[in-house]
């Protein structure tokens, strides 16, 4: 079997020749290390007052190329590491002047989030969501109105971006496009969680309007991702936090259930499969995921108490499981024996009967490529079907 057959067989809950392994490589820190590349010192350039303005303009003008280059490297690194598949993600970002940020520059995404850039000790760029820019109803309305042309442009870019990655790398790895961020994340993060929580109780109509807007936009976004032609697509929303869902499941159903059903229908109408990402502790939402029509789930964050065996027991083969090796310790500084033991446990817990793709639980800039190599190697050694460990 080749990588594609392996993934598609697992997605049908059948046993391929061996357990497929998916990379969640996206951080330049990981790709650069695997490919032996020096990081582009964007942080240093942005911190240099004489260069900052020019660099900002160059980033804004060439953002699509930067994104492409980032994921081209991620795919190249994933191929080198021996993964069968890797995700590809597009983010629309603009650098703007902001004296409150350390570098004097802030990163705004299309949906109204503020990000801040930092660099790791090797100079690799890291972007982290900081807060929302749309803290009031008026600000949200104005942003959405002003950004309509940008949203249209973003949809066009998304389609071309994923298609190009598939065209250039699809013969060596299975690039699974991820439509992200999701409807819930795009609804609350630009507003901020405290404000969003207030609005849920004080301005429910506004919250419903925000979600309806982002549902329509997300469906267009998802359709653009699917133009890559790949049979599996990822969607997602972080619905969980460390100890449970972020909102009452009944409230999630009320606010987002119909949106998620439409997401699944949109994917299935195109004959594709949908793998859903959510961080956090999501045991109490697993049946909902089945009901909403998701074909699989990815992540199952161990630091939030998610265990593959328990998930499999709870949902059987109603969902394909993708995950969930720990990125807080195991794939950062775990020993080879620990990585191998975790791979064996994951295979034992989830792989029988197919429907399982082994991967890290998430991307993370601290993940050590050597540990990823160990993970792939152990998967190849112990993941041959029929499973005998």
């Amino acid at each position, binding site marked *: 079997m080749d990588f594609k057959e392996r993934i598609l067989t697992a997605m049908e809950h059948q046993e391929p020749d061996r357990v497929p392994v998916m990379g969640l490589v996206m951080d330049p820190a990981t790709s650069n290390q695997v490919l032996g590349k020096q990081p582009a010192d964007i942080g240093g350039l942005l911190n240099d007052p004489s260069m900052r303005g020019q660099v900002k303009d160059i980033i804004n003008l060439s953002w699509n190329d930067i994104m492409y280059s980032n994921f081209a490297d991620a795919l190249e690194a994933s191929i080198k590491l021996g993964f069968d598949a890797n995700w590809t993600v597009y983010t629309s970002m603009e650098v703007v002047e902001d004296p409150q940020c350390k570098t004097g520059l802030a990163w705004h995404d299309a949906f109204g989030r503020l990000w*801040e850039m*930092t660099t790791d000790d090797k100079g690799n760029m890291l972007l982290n969501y900081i807060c929302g820019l749309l803290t009031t109803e008026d600000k949200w309305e104005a942003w959405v109105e002003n950004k309509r042309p940008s949203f249209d442009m973003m949809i066009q870019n998304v389609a071309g971006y994923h298609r190009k990655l598939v065209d250039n790398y699809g013969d060596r790895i299975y690039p699974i496009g991820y439509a992200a961020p999701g409807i819930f994340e795009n609804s609350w993060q630009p507003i901020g969680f405290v404000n969003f929580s207030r609005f849920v109780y004080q301005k429910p109509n506004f919250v419903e309007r925000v979600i309806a807007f982002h549902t329509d936009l997300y469906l267009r976004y998802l359709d653009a991702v699917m133009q890559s032609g790949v049979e599996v697509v990822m969607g997602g929303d972080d619905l969980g936090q460390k100890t*449970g869902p972020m909102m009452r499941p009944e409230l999630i159903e009320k606010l987002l259930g119909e949106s998620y059903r439409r997401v699944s229908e949109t994917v299935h109408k195109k004959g594709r499969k949908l793998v859903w990402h959510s961080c956090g502790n999501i045991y109490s939402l697993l049946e909902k995921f089945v009901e909403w029509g998701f074909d699989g789930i990815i992540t199952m964050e161990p*630091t939030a108490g998610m265990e593959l065996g328990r998930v499999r027991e709870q949902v059987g083969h109603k969902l394909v499981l993708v995950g969930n090796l720990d990125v807080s310790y195991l794939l950062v500084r775990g020993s080879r024996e620990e990585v191998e033991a975790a791979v064996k446990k994951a295979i034992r817990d989830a792989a029988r009967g197919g429907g399982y793709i082994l991967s890290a639980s998430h991307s993370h*800039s601290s993940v050590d490529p050597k540990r990823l190599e160990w993970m792939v190697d152990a998967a190849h050694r112990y993941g041959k079907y029929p499973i005998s460990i």
Partner: protein
Amino acid sequence: MNSDEQLGTLKESLLGLDMEGAVEAARSLADGGGQAAVQDAVSAVSEALGVVGKRFQDGEWFLTELVYAGEIAKEVMGLLTPLLEAGAAEAAGTVVVGTVAGDLHDLGKNIFVSYARGAGFKVVDLGVDVPVDRFVDAARESSALALGMSCLLTSTEGEIGKVIAELERQGLRESVKVIVGGAALTEQFARHVGADAFAPDAITGLDTVKKWSAS
């Protein structure tokens, strides 16, 4: 309505996530009584927040409810605190909290701050991206019972060990308990860096600090 009924309404409103009702009840109590009535109202908020926290830990309530109840408490305490005699609202001890250097996330920390203030702690909130020295200086200057560090990013978790090492170097480690929490962290990590406790969520963290305060 007598003051007992008003106290009941305050608690019920908070637990019913009725901000308007809770603020109205607090205002009536503040207007109609002296220092004792205000103190009773503060205690009622504290009790209600305790119930909210328990419901969250038991999985009956969720983050949006926890956050919104905290927001209601914040509004109510904003009315009551200025009416209290100095020190009366901060009898349980001082807790210094902040998000470690390089990390700008504060949702979990802010929930902790709201609930800890509601529970009668004086909270020195250092905000986000807090360097080692500021944690240590604040712990020393406030004679803190506990120091809480929040960390969402694995890339910044190393800061926690640096703060603990600096507390030790300055001879403060024995006098201040250290608690850590955040998405990136685990119990194993907390033990590894020498923290006294790990908080999987803000409410569990507060329970731990309450135990330290009582001991």
